[in-house]
């Protein structure tokens, strides 16, 4: 175990906490932007720190391809490579493989797939995933799980849940750096409360540093989504962080925090920025629309980020989808907005009145 988790304030099931990781002391609830290939699209470390990013997520699949985990290990790990002074989290690589590759298949051994470089058959086992993540060196690493979409029904879900439990043992056994990197288990089980319960209890028995709720944000309806999150947070230990993977929209984050979750990741704010969409209190603002061409207001008059303080919607409109600077500025604003959603939740807990 290489972390400390202290709850500092509560409101019903929601909690504000301090998560001490090897590279950084974080405040939860927190949102982790996705820096897929060792960078958040177009933003520098200084800008990310200014925005308030505490942990960045790196995708193991992409990093293993380029620049390779061996190179990262040789150069002192991903922190040193990126010169990122705060915390990092890597995923297991499994999800990307299943979603990005044709002919990816899951067996008891691991995830078999065709190498995207030369088409050779390859296999990502739980052991291999952990070894790669050990070389990358992130503060938090994720177990390789058997993830199925929530829109699937039938025995596949049960098979995936039990396999996830068998794989966590293999991951734990393969983990060579438990004093520097925290291995989180991932709760699977689809939308079935019985399966989810078995999985939670199985993972809790393994006494891991933290737990993730996986297999969601894949197209299920909102009611099902919240029910699963609520069930899992009720059953997971109070004194350990809970990470809902792939979430998401600001509203989803607020609701999940109310239900007792602490950590989130999603490509949404940065991806939607590249399509010219800004996140605002009222929802979204599509800067591409012709109506923006002579709107001289800032993107969000209540936002104090450097984009909203200096630029008008009209100017951003003429940049988006045409010039790299447009997506840089919107990514900056969108991440700033996401961070504010969190700090406002955190701050509200410190005082007598609550969110």
């Amino acid at each position, binding site marked *: 175990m290489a972390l400390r988790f202290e709850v500092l304030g509560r409101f019903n099931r929601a909690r504000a906490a301090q998560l001490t990781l090897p590279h950084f002391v974080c405040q939860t609830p927190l949102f982790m932007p996705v820096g897929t290939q060792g960078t958040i*699209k177009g933003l520098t*470390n200084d800008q990310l720190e200014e925005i308030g990013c505490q942990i960045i997520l790196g995708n193991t699949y992409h990093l293993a391809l380029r620049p390779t985990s061996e190179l990262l290990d040789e150069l002192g790990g991903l922190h040193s490579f990126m010169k990122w002074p705060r915390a990092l989290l890597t995923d297991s690589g499994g999800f990307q493989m299943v979603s990005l590759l044709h002919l990816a298949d899951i067996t008891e051994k691991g995830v078999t797939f065709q190498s995207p470089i030369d088409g050779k058959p390859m296999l990502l086992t739980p052991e291999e995933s952990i070894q790669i993540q050990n070389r990358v060196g992130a503060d938090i690493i994720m177990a390789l799980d058997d993830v199925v979409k929530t829109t699937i029904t039938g025995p596949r879900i049960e098979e995936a849940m039990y396999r996830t439990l068998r794989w966590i043992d293999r991951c734990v056994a393969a983990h060579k750096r438990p004093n520097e990197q925290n291995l989180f288990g991932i709760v699977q089980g689809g939308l079935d409360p019985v399966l989810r319960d078995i999985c939670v209890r199985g993972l809790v028995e393994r006494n891991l540093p933290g737990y993730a709720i996986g297999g969601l944000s894949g197209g299920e309806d909102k009611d099902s989504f919240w029910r699963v999150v609520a069930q899992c947070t009720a059953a997971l230990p109070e004194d350990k962080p809970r990470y809902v993977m792939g979430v998401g929209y600001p509203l989803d984050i607020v609701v999940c925090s109310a239900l007792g979750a602490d950590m989130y990741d999603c490509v949404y704010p940065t991806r939607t920025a590249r399509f010219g969409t800004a996140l605002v209190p009222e929802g979204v603002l599509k800067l591409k629309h012709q109506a923006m061409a002579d709107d001289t207001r800032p993107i969000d008059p209540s936002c104090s980020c450097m984009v909203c303080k200096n630029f008008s919607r009209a100017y951003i409109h*003429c940049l988006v989808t045409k010039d790299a600077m447009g997506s840089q500025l919107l990514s900056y604003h969108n991440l700033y907005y996401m961070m504010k959603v969190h700090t406002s939740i955190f701050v509200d807990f410190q005082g007598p009145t609550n969110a």
Partner: protein
Amino acid sequence: MKFSVKAWSSGKARTGVLHLGSFEMETPSLLLSTRKGLPHFISPDLLPSLPSPDSRLLQFSPLHFLDGLSPKTISKIGGLHQMLGLHEYGFVAVARDSIQCLPSHDGTNRVGPSFETPCGRHLIKPIEYMEMISSMRPNIWATLADEVPAWVSEKRNTSSVDRTVKWLDECIALRPIGGEVFGAIVGGSNEELRQHCAREVARRNVSGYWIGGFGLGESMDERPALLNAVCDNLPEEKPRLICGLDLLEEVLQGVAAGIDLFDSTYINHITLGGFALTFPLDGIEAKVSNFQPSDVGSDRIKINLRATVYRKDTTPIVEGCSCYTCRNHTKAYINHLLNVHEMLAQTLLELHNTHHYLGFFRLIRESIKEGKFERFRQRFIADRHDDLAVSAANA
């Protein structure tokens, strides 16, 4: 705007001080190339990390805004400084930006010059141009020019001079609100026409001169005579801005002829190519210690960071360089970013390359102040010839 010449070296090379709005800067100096007023990759909060006031002059083309921002809206916002939140910077408006707004000499006619832009070919008349200038309120603006490549007929070249002078008068007559006007001078590769145009423009009431029509096919050998034909016929006390001289040796040619300001796209081109400038500045030896001619374009001036030799290189681009990139990142990381096509590569490269290129201009100014400009220039040219000879021998 105020400009005064301070020192001379080797004949016509001179340093000066340009006082513009809220700041003062020494010349010869560089205009940073922008797209719609902002650097291509360096966001405004990172601009202050560049040397100041060297980095305060920004060039833009009013034609950049053809694709989505009307002069009316820009006026409503209050002009470019307000629109970009860059009140401490100087903006110079020039129709040609040498990257995406390129003079299209066969589309041009009597009425106005034509440009190839991302929105297609556009012919801009003085009245339309001046409406843009009035709404944008740059500190300095150049009048419209008919720039022709070096190989056109004398007849075409002559008409380009006549039109350019005519448009100068038309632009000035449409008095914009504020902003200093720089008269445009053309004349292609014909010394007499260059001289004639310079004399005509010198008779007009302008604050400085924008020298166009270079970087359009003329050879480096014929350029000094053309530059002299222009500069020798301009009053000494007004600033001269030139477009189209990018390479280090070309800038030195310009300085030797008496040019004060350079509108160059060199940084943009090398940044997009994945190159980083590494030539020694001020005795700081670049870590290209064992210089080897390479087949990836690296030489004594720059390195190609896409090359696999940098995959594990954890040193900064230039040891001792104080730019954001060299203080914070390694060649290995930038090599990775280039390989995975991440935008941060261009941001980091533009930061370093701008910093380094501005350092070159600082060296030029120092050599002029010490009266050693010609020696400085010869040394640069000699080094460059050595590199090219070695590369050619190994090819």
